[in-house]
C-alpha cells in the first residue's frame, strides 16, 4: 500500500514538473547558431535576449524571439558584423525565457550580464519583466533595450541612463485618438480600461491630454485583468450617452468587452488603443469588431501606406523575410519591436564594438533617423524612446481585416 502511494505521488509530481517545464514549440531552425568563428575572424559579439517565450505574454515573446533569430541568421550568413577593428565578428545571440515572470526575468538578465558577459541586453516582452531587469542592467553598466510599452521603463530619464526602449509609449497613441475626436467635433467621451500598469498608463495619458484639449471624460471605468463580464461598467456608460467610447485593453478582455458593447445596443464609435493590434482580436470579436478604430504602428497596413512613407520598404522587407524564416507566419507589431531593438544593437556593435559604455553613448547620441518597424527612431539624452505620433497610423477594422485611415479622412464617416 505504501509503495502504491509513493508511486502515485511520484506520478503526480512527474506530471506537474512536466507540465511546468514543457516548452511549447521548438524555435525555427537557425542555420548558424554559434558556429565556430571562421579563420581571420574576430571574437563573436554577444547579444543577450530575455523574452517571454512561455506564459501569458508568449504571444509577444515568440515573434520577438523568432525575429531576433532571423536577424542573427541574416547577419551571420552575410559573414557577420564588421566591427570598428575591421575584422568580421559572428553575432552570438543568447536567448533566455522569462516565462512572463518578473523574477525570472531578473535572474535571466543576471546570467546574461554576469556569466555570459553580453555586450548589450535586450528585453523583455512585458512591462513588469522589463522594469525588473532595469536594476541588473544599471548596476552592471550594461545598455538595455526593452520591447515593452510602459513609459516608466525609460522615465525618469536621469535614473535610466542605461535603458532604452523601442515600442511607442501610450502618449502618442492617445494623441492620435485625440486627432480623430477633434476632427469629428466630439467633446464628450467615456473610457473603460484594464486595471494594471498598461491600462493605468494609457488612462493617465488620456485624462491628461483630453483635459487639455477640452474633451470631457464622462466616466473613467476600470475592470480587473481576467474579467469577462462588463455589463455593469457598460450599463453605466450607456446611461451617460457619450459621443465616443475609449477602451484600454488587450484581446483577452477587449474582445468580450467589444461583443458585449454591441449586444447592449451601444452605437457610439469605439476607439481602442494599440493593445488589440493582432488578429486574435478580430478572430474573437468577429462581427462586433467591425468599425472599431485604433492607433497602431504601420506594420499592419504596410501595403496601403503611400509610397512616400519612409518606413514602407523596411516594413515590406520584414514581412517577406519573417514569412520566409517562419514558414509563412505573418509578423506582429511585437516582432517589430524586437526587430528594432536587435537591429539597433547590431548597428551599435558595428560602429563601436562590444564595449558597453561606448554602446550606451552610441545609442544615446548616434541613433538618428534610424528607420525601423515601429517608427523612425531619434534617441537623445532626453528621449530614450525616440518615436512619436508620426510613427502611428489610425486603423479601422473592416471585413475582418485592417483598413488604413489617412489623417485627412478622419472626419469622413
Amino acid at each position, binding site marked *: *500500500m505504501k509503495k*502504491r*502511494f509513493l508511486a*502515485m505521488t511520484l506520478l*503526480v509530481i512527474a*506530471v*506537474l514538473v512536466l*507540465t*511546468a517545464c*514543457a516548452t*511549447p*514549440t521548438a524555435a525555427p531552425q537557425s542555420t548558424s547558431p554559434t558556429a565556430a568563428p571562421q579563420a581571420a575572424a574576430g571574437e563573436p559579439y554577444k547579444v543577450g535576449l530575455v523574452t517571454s517565450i512561455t*506564459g*501569458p505574454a*508568449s*504571444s509577444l515573446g*515568440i515573434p520577438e524571439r523568432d525575429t531576433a533569430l532571423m536577424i542573427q541568421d541574416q547577419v551571420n550568413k552575410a559573414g557577420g558584423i564588421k566591427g570598428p577593428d575591421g575584422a568580421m565578428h559572428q553575432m552570438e545571440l543568447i536567448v533566455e525565457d522569462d516565462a512572463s515572470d518578473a523574477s525570472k526575468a531578473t535572474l535571466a538578465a543576471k546570467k546574461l550580464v554576469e556569466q555570459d558577459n553580453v555586450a548589450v541586453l535586450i528585453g523583455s516582452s512585458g512591462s513588469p519583466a522589463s522594469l525588473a531587469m532595469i536594476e541588473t542592467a544599471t548596476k552592471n553598466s550594461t545598455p538595455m533595450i526593452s520591447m515593452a510599452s510602459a513609459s516608466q521603463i525609460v522615465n525618469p530619464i536621469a535614473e535610466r541612463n542605461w535603458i532604452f526602449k523601442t515600442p511607442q509609449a501610450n502618449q502618442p497613441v492617445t494623441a492620435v485618438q485625440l486627432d480623430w475626436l477633434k476632427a469629428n467635433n466630439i467633446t464628450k467621451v467615456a473610457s*473603460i480600461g484594464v*486595471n494594471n500598469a498598461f491600462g493605468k498608463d494609457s488612462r493617465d495619458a488620456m485624462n491628461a491630454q483630453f483635459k487639455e484639449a477640452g474633451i470631457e471624460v464622462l466616466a473613467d*471605468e*476600470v*475592470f*480587473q485583468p*481576467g*474579467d*469577462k*463580464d462588463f*455589463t*455593469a*461598467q457598460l*450599463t*453605466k456608460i*450607456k*446611461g451617460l450617452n457619450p459621443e465616443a467610447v475609449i477602451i484600454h485593453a488587450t*484581446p*483577452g478582455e477587449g*474582445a*468580450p468587452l467589444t*461583443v*458585449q458593447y454591441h*449586444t*447592449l*445596443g451601444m452605437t457610439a464609435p469605439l476607439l481602442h488603443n494599440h493593445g488589440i493590434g493582432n488578429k*486574435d482580436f478580430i478572430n*474573437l470579436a*468577429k462581427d462586433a469588431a467591425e468599425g472599431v478604430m485604433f492607433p497602431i504602428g504601420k506594420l499592419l497596413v504596410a501595403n496601403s501606406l503611400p509610397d512616400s512613407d519612409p518606413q514602407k520598404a523596411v516594413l515590406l522587407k520584414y514581412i517577406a523575410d519573417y514569412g520566409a524564416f517562419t514558414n509563412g507566419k505573418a509578423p506582429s507589431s511585437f516582432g517589430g519591436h524586437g526587430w528594432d531593438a536587435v537591429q539597433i544593437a547590431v548597428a551599435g556593435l558595428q560602429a563601436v564594438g562590444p564595449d558597453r559604455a561606448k554602446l550606451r553613448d552610441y545609442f544615446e547620441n548616434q541613433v538618428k533617423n534610424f528607420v525601423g518597424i515601429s517608427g523612425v527612431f531619434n534617441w537623445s539624452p532626453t528621449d530614450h524612446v525616440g518615436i512619436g505620433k508620426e510613427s502611428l497610423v489610425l486603423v479601422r477594422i473592416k471585413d475582418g481585416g485592417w483598413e488604413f485611415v489617412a489623417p485627412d479622412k478622419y472626419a469622413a464617416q
Partner: protein
Amino acid sequence: MSPDQLFQLLIAGLTIGSIYALIALGFVVIHNVTGVINLAQGEFAMLGALIAITLTSETPLFHRAFTVNWNLPLFIGIVLATLLVMGVGALVYWIVVRAPRTDSVIIQIIITIGIAITLRGIALITWGTDPFRLPEFSAGPPIQIGSAVLTRQDLWVIGSAFALMALLYLFFQHTFIGTSLRACAVNRTAARLMGINVSYMMLLAFVLSAGIGALAGIVIAPKTFMGYDTGTYLGLKGFVAAIVIGGLSDERGAIVGGLLLGVLEIFAAALISSGYKDAIAFLVLIAVLFVQTTGILRRGAKREAAGV
C-alpha cells in the same frame, strides 16, 4: 441610475450568478458525499467549454502545430464535451480518493490543488494562452425591455442553470441513487451499514460535479469566452458562493449564494466603483466567516432537509 439600468444590472447579475451557482453546486455535491473540497471545480468548467469549442469549430492546437476542424453540430459537441469531462471527473475521483490510500481529507484537498494546476497546464499546452469563443446557441437580435437588453444567450444561461437545478432536485429527492447519495452525505458509515456502496457513490459525486461544471462553462462561453485560466476565476467565485450561505454543505444555499454573489458583484461595480468588483466576493466571504463559520444557514437545516 434609471429603473431600466437597474433592471439591466439585475439581468447581468442573475446571468453570471447562475454560473456561480452551478459551480457552487459542484463543490457542495462532492463535499457532502466525500468530505473533500475539490479545488479543481473551476477547471471542469474550463475543460468543458474548451473541448466543446474544439469539437464544434476550427481550432488551432499545440501552439498552432495543427488545426482541427471537426465542425460537429453544437448540440452533439456539448453532449460529447460534457461526457468527456465527466470521464475526467472519474479520473479525478481515482487520483483523489482511491489512489492515495489515506482518509486524510487535507491530503485529498491538496491533491485537488495539484490536479487544478495540472489541468490548467495541460490546457495551456493544448490551447495556448488565447481565449476561444463558442457561437451563441441561437442566433438572433436581443430582446428589448425598455432600454434594457436581454440577449438570447442570457436566457440560455439562466434557463439551463435552472433546468439543471430542477433536474438535480428531482434526482436527489425522487430516485433511489439520489437518496443513497444523500444518505452518504448524512452519515457515511451508516450508509455503508445499510448496504450502500459508498465508493460508488463517491465516484458518482465526482462524475456528477464534473458534468455540472462542464455545462456551466459551456453555457457561459459564448458570452465571456474561455481561456486556459478562466476556470480558476469561476472556481474561486463558485467556492465563495458555496461557502457563504450554505457553508459548503447545502445545495439550496449554494444556489442562493451564487445568484446573490452575481447580483451583488454587478451592482457594486456599477454603483460603487468598478475597481471593487472582485473585492466584493472576498469581503462577503470574510464577513460571513467572522460571523458564522458554517455559513448563514446552519448545518442543521440541511439535515432537516435530508430528513434526519
